[in-house]
């Protein structure tokens, strides 16, 4: 009989503990508000995982791991002729592009990442079906669940802390008027730089997360670190659900009349001259 429920009542930690202790084999399907994840287990170990929204093919995972360039990725995609992951893996190993270890490490890292992100889902319908194996053409791994559960628990604690600091994702962020004295010594991550162009009081944090493909935990981490660095501050926003996706810094000339555009440019010219 399948195990069914909602993550809000039976957490992922509890589910993984059950699968680990009972050495279960099967598939866990979790459906969130707009994405679904499938995780396969063999004898209580993580074997395979995929998020329906992502490219879970071997070539996609190697590209995401930066082992393949974009042009290599597109080339293989175009010329792969329906080659399965196992066939492609063998081809790449035999051609000495990668070692078996390279490929297995990338897959393992990707699968663990898929499961780790599931820990940030506070709700979602799940179903565990026993004795369903991963697709035949996919390469599987064997990862112990203990460390994944520990890491997941740590993430949940971090998320709880961040939820206290940033209680709602429906607020906006703006650049502070006077950044701290040490901004020139900052080290920003690529995720933080991804968010910077969207910093605008009109954009909610949730909208920024959607457009940058960051999870709730990740966007909270980024916003919290930018706030801590003294670059941005949180503000109330006029945006609400149902509003269009966020824009980057807008092109005001495109939005206004020509005369308004000229007037705006003259104001900037006057200011630059006075510097």
């Amino acid at each position, binding site marked *: 009989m399948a195990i069914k429920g909602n993550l809000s009542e039976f957490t992922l930690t509890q589910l993984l503990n059950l699968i680990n202790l009972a050495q279960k084999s099967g598939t866990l399907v979790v459906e969130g508000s707009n994405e679904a994840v499938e995780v396969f287990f063999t004898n209580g170990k993580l074997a395979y995982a995929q998020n329906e929204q992502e490219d879970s093919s071997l070539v996609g995972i190697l590209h995401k791991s930066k082992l393949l360039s974009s042009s290599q990725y597109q080339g293989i995609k175009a010329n792969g002729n329906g080659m399965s992951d196992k066939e492609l893996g063998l081809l790449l190993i035999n051609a000495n592009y990668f070692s078996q270890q390279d490929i297995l490490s990338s897959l393992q890292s990707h699968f663990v990442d898929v499961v780790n992100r599931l820990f940030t889902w506070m709700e979602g319908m799940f179903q565990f079906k026993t004795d369903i194996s991963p697709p035949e053409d996919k390469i599987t791994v064997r990862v112990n669940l203990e460390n994944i559960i520990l890491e997941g628990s740590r993430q949940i604690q971090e998320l709880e802390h961040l939820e206290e600091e940033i209680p709602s994702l429906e607020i906006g962020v*703006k*650049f502070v008027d*006077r*950044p701290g*004295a040490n*901004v*020139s010594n*900052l*080290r*920003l991550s*690529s995720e933080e*730089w*991804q968010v*910077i*162009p969207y910093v*605008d*009081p009109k954009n909610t944090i949730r909208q920024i997360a959607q457009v940058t493909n960051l999870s709730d935990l990740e966007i909270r981490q980024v916003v919290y670190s930018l706030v801590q660095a003294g*670059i941005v501050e949180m503000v109330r926003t006029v945006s609400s659900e149902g509003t269009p996706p966020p*824009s*980057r*810094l*807008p*092109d*005001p*000339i495109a939005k206004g009349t*020509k005369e308004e*555009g*000229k007037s*705006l*440019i*003259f*104001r*900037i*010219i006057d*200011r*630059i*001259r006075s*510097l």
Partner: protein
Amino acid sequence: MQTLKMVVTGPFNAGKTEFIQSVSEIDVVSTERKISSEIERIKETTTVAMDFGRISIDNEMVLYLFGTPGQKRFDFMWEILSEGMLGFVVIVDSTRPETFREARKILETFRAYAPTPYVVAANKQDCEDAWEIDDMRIALRLNPEIKLLECVATRKDSVKTVLLELLYSILAELETIDLQLTY
């Protein structure tokens, strides 16, 4: 508060960070890290993501200057940065002709992302081995109507001139649109 954006781009080590720093009212926010690549070991650190500086225009408007990453491997950031920009400045190191081809490629890439006005700034014109502007125009294959300006990115007046020329180009383009509409 209205926010506007200009992009400062150009090859690695062309002087983008200095350019922004010269006119920004805040310390330029930038990421710098040690470089390992042989080719890029010209300076100790390089911009790996982007810089940004700020100029308050008045109480209602802020202009941000975004500097793009200098290295090819960060070109995925360029499209993100180019969206919604008023215009862009391509900085070229006048003393390093080996980077001219790269500068040309970057210019074409940005033009493809957004056909907004731009100017080219020939930086380090105070150096003895800087190329003459006319020679650079030929090497960069720039048409006569494209503004190629002498620049020393560490000098505020020089940077102001480049930004003003870009703004005049934006104005000129607006005038052109008017003419097209009234034709």
